[in-house]
C-alpha cells in the first residue's frame, strides 16, 4: 500500500533530532552528495551537543563544527579534498571544542556495515599497528589504547587481528538523487557508504533532489539501493547538497565552496555565514533564491547532466512535490 512519507525539512528536524544525539550524515565525500541542508536546519533549530558520525567530512560537518553544534565526531577523512583543510572543523578541534575520533575511510564503512548487520564487532585488517589504533580521542589518558580497536584472535589460525566497534547512529540524513513518496531511492554517483548507513541507522530521513513517480523504481529496481521499508521520511529539497555536487543533477559550486570555507575559518565569518546562508531563507524557494537562479541553471547544465536523462520522464514537477509534502504534513 503506497504511503506518502514526504514531510518538510523543518518537520523532519523537529521530529527526528534532539540535543546530544548521534547524528549521521556525510556518507558521501567532501565534494559530493551530502544532505548539507539538513545540517543548516539543525542550526536553525539550535540543536546542540551532537555526536556526529560522518564517513568523511563534508561542508555540513565543517559548518556544524564551526557553529559549535558538535562536541564529538567520528570520521575517516577530515579535509575538503581539492578545497583544502576544513577550517571550521579544524578550528573546533584545535581549540578543544570538538573531540574527533580518527578512523580510516574503510574503517568507517566497515563500522557501518557492522551496525547494519548488528554484529558485536567487525574484523579489522586496516588501522592496526598505527596510531589510529593506539590513540583514542574519546579516552585520551590510556596509551597505547586497547579499547578503540582491540585485538581479536582468529579461531582458524590463532593469529590476532583488530576489531572495530559497529555504528548504530540514532538518525541518518542521507542525500539521494531521486526518491518516490514511499522512500524508495536512487543514488547517482558513488554510493560511498550510503547503502550501509541506510541499514545501520536507527532511523533514516532522505533528502532528495527530485521526487519521482514509483513507476521509475519499477523500471529500475536494481538502482533502488535504498528501499522505502528502511526509510522514515522523505524531504524534497533540490540542491540539498549545495555547494557540493550531486552527480547527474548539478556540479560543485566552486566559488561558494571556497567562500564558505574561508568564512568558517573565523568566528566572525562563521556568524556571518550563519546569518546569510542558514537563517536567511524562509522555505525551499527562498533557499533556491539564495543560491541564485542563474547559478542553479549554470550548475545544472554540467557535463554529467546526461546521467539524469533516463529518469526525467518520471520527475514530479516542483509544485507537485511541494503539494505532496503539504498533503502528508496535514
Amino acid at each position, binding site marked *: 500500500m503506497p504511503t506518502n512519507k514526504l514531510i518538510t525539512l523543518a518537520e523532519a528536524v523537529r521530529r527526528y533530532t534532539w540535543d546530544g544525539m548521534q547524528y549521521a550524515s556525510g556518507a*558521501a*565525500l*567532501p*565534494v*559530493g552528495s551530502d544532505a548539507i541542508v539538513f545540517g543548516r536546519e539543525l542550526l536553525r533549530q539550535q540543536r546542540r551537543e551532537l555526536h556526529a558520525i560522518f*564517513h*568523511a567530512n563534508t561542508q555540513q560537518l565543517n559548518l556544524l563544527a564551526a557553529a559549535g553544534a558538535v562536541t564529538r565526531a567520528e570520521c*575517516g*577523512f*577530515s*579535509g*575538503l*579534498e*581539492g*578545497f583544502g*583543510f576544513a577550517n571550521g*572543523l*579544524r578550528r573546533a578541534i*584545535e*581549540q578543544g571544542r570538538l573531540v*574527533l575520533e*580518527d*578512523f*580510516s*575511510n*574503510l*574503517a*568507517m*564503512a*566497515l563500522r557501518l*556495515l557492522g551496525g547494519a548487520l548488528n554484529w558485536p564487532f567487525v574484523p579489522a*585488517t*586496516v*588501522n*592496526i*599497528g*598505527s*596510531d*589510529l589504533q593506539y*590513540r*583514542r*580521542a574519546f579516552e*585520551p*589518558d590510556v*596509551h597505547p589504547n586497547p579499547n578503540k580497536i582491540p585485538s581479536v584472535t582468529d579461531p582458524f589460525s590463532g*593469529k*590476532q587481528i583488530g576489531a572495530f566497534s559497529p555504528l548504530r547512529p540514532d538518525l541518518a540524513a542521507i542525500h539521494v538523487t531521486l526518491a518516490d513518496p514511499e522512500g524508495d531511492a536512487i543514488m*547517482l*554517483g*558513488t*554510493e*560511498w*557508504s550510503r547503502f*550501509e548507513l541506510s541499514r545501520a541507522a536507527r532511523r533514516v530521513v532522505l533528502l532528495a533532489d527530485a521526487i519521482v513517480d514509483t513507476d521509475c523504481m519499477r523500471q529500475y529496481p536494481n538502482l533502488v539501493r535504498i528501499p522505502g521499508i528502511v526509510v522514515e521520511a522523505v524531504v524534497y529539497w533540490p540542491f540539498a547538497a549545495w555547494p557540493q*555536487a550531486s*552527480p547527474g543533477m548539478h556540479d560543485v559550486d*566552486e566559488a561558494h565552496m571556497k567562500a564558505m570555507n574561508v568564512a568558517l575559518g573565523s568566528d566572525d565569518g562563521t556568524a556571518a555565514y550563519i546569518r546569510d546562508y542558514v537563517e536567511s531563507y524562509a522555505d525551499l524557494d527562498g533557499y533556491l533564491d539564495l543560491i541564485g537562479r542563474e547559478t542553479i541553471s549554470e550548475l545544472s547544465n554540467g*557535463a*554529467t547532466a546526461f*546521467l539524469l536523462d533516463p529518469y526525467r520522464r518520471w520527475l514530479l514537477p516542483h509544485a507537485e512535490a511541494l503539494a505532496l509534502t503539504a498533503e502528508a504534513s496535514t
Partner: protein
Amino acid sequence: MTTDYSRQEMMAIATGREIRDGELAIFGVGLSMLAGYFAQAHHAPGVRAMTEGGVYGARPVGGLPWGIECNRLAVNAVSFTSALDALGCLVASGRCDVGIIGAAQVDRFGNVNTTGIWDGPIGEIYRPPKTRLTGAGGANDIACGAKRYLIMVSHEPKRFVDRVSYVTSPGYLDGGDAREQVGLIGGGPSAIITTLGILRPDPQSREFQLDAYFPFSGAEEILSNTGWDLKVAADVRVVSEPSSEELAALRRVDETGMLRR
C-alpha cells in the same frame, strides 16, 4: 631532452614511472591522480584505475577533479560502487597492485602522518594538535593493504622527520618485520618520491635510503633537507630527465597547470 619542467613535474613523472601497465591502481585527488593518469597516458595504457569511492574506468574531464566524487570523474565512469568495495574488496584485501598517497610528515621507516602537527611529542595523554590536518582518509587502508605503495611528498626538513609524531598510515613502523608482526597484509611503501629525488627501503632494516636524485638536485641538497641521518645507497644514481613525450603526456593530464605553479 628538455630542461623546461618544474620540480613538481619531475616528481609526478618519477612517480608515474613506478606504475606498470595492467596494474590495478588506486589514485587519490591531486598530485596522486596526476601521476597516475600520466602513467596511463604515457606508458601504462592498460592500468586499471579506481578511486576509493568505487569509481571505475573514469578519466578526468574538464580539469583536475576537486574530489573523487567530483563530476569531472563521474562524467565518463563505467561503474560506481562504494568505499567498502574499492577500499575493502580491492585494496585492504591485498589485491591492489599499487597505490599513491601523500604525506605531511614521513619518517625513516616510511611512516606517514597526515593527522596533525603537535608542538613536540604528543606524550602519554592524547591532546589536540596545534595544526589539525586531514586525517587518514583512504591512505591508511592503502598503506595497510596494497601490494606496494608510493609516497609523494615535497622534500623539506620539517616533513622528513626521524619519527612522525602520529602514525596515520603505516610504513615499516619500527623497521625490520614490524609490519608483518602486527598482521598487515600489504607490502609497504616501495618508494618515497620527493621534489628532489627517490628514497627506497633497505630490504632488511626497511630504513629508507637515498636511491636517486633528480638532474637538478644532488645528494647534498637532499641530505640537508632530511631530518634524519639519511643513508645514501652505494649505487645512488641520477634519475633521467623527463622526455618530451613524458612531459607532453603529463601536461595533457595536468591541463590546468597545477604542477607548474
